[in-house]
């Protein structure tokens, strides 16, 4: 076991742990919107740690390029996915959990009537 092996293992294990935490969070949080928090932050960092850990262990630079690309795309897709799920849920009239104390979007209208001009509906 070299130092690189130890570091890679530690990164892989903590990445996996974060992904497990994200999955548990999806079950435990009270509403769609809180669940999206669990689905974005720990999942993104978790995947990133797994990818860095894997990149330390593979020798081939082509494989490292693939891992880099996967990490980069996660940063673009995870927040967009969570945004769209949350937005769709809100527009569909999903109730916020009773722990919600303020909803400024309700005043603005939930149907997106003021969406940007030129945006296809």
């Amino acid at each position, binding site marked *: 076991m070299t130092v690189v092996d130890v570091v890679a293992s530690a990164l892989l294990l903590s990445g996996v742990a974060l992904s497990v935490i994200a999955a548990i969070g999806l079950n435990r949080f009270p509403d769609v919107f809180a669940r999206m928090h669990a689905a974005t932050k720990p999942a993104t960092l978790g995947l990133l740690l797994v990818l860095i850990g894997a990149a330390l262990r593979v020798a*081939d630079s082509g494989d490292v390029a693939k891992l880099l690309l996967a990490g980069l795309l996660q940063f673009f897709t995870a927040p967009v996915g969570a945004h769209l799920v949350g937005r769709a849920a809100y527009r569909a009239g999903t109730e916020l959990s009773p722990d919600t104390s303020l909803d400024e979007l309700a005043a603005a209208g939930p149907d997106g009537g003021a969406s940007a001009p030129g945006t296809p509906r």
Partner: protein
Amino acid sequence: MSSVTSRLAFLTWLVVVWVALWGDLSVANVVGGLAAGAAVLLAFPHAGPRRPRYLDPVGALRFLGYFLVQLVSATALVAWEVVTPRPWRLNEAVVAVRVFGASDAVVTLLANAISLTPGTLTLEVRRDDVAATLYVHVLHFRGVEQVRRDVEGLEARALRAFCAPPVLRDAVATIHLPRPDAAARPGEDA
């Protein structure tokens, strides 16, 4: 940036992705990537990011650094929330935050970054002429001002990185305009 340069930049990006996916920088892969990229551009003429027209490299690095620190602390916060036994109480809220809409690219960047930083998640974006209103879902609500300060921390750094200084001065003026959502306050029920 003219549309030709921006399409060429997008084609270059597609070729880089193609080559990275094959994992081998060879002539065949570059040619294949060019063919596939051209096909994508033909099939989706409006595809491609509207790239920010201005980039301050130091500002961009500082934005990235700030963002990564925020991502780690966001993860720690949510992870702690998940593993600690009940009863915890979330105090959720949806808060409207005005940000300066320098370009669609900057607004997109901000909306994404907000979703990956502590306790906040972008739910909805509304554009108007001078600014964009982001509707942010908050996990631990401690007052509207707190949320706005968090978003402004990201916004200030994003604008410094991707906004030319004269536009930035407009931004400062715009951001401190009265927030139009203040008028909508009576409609809220606590």
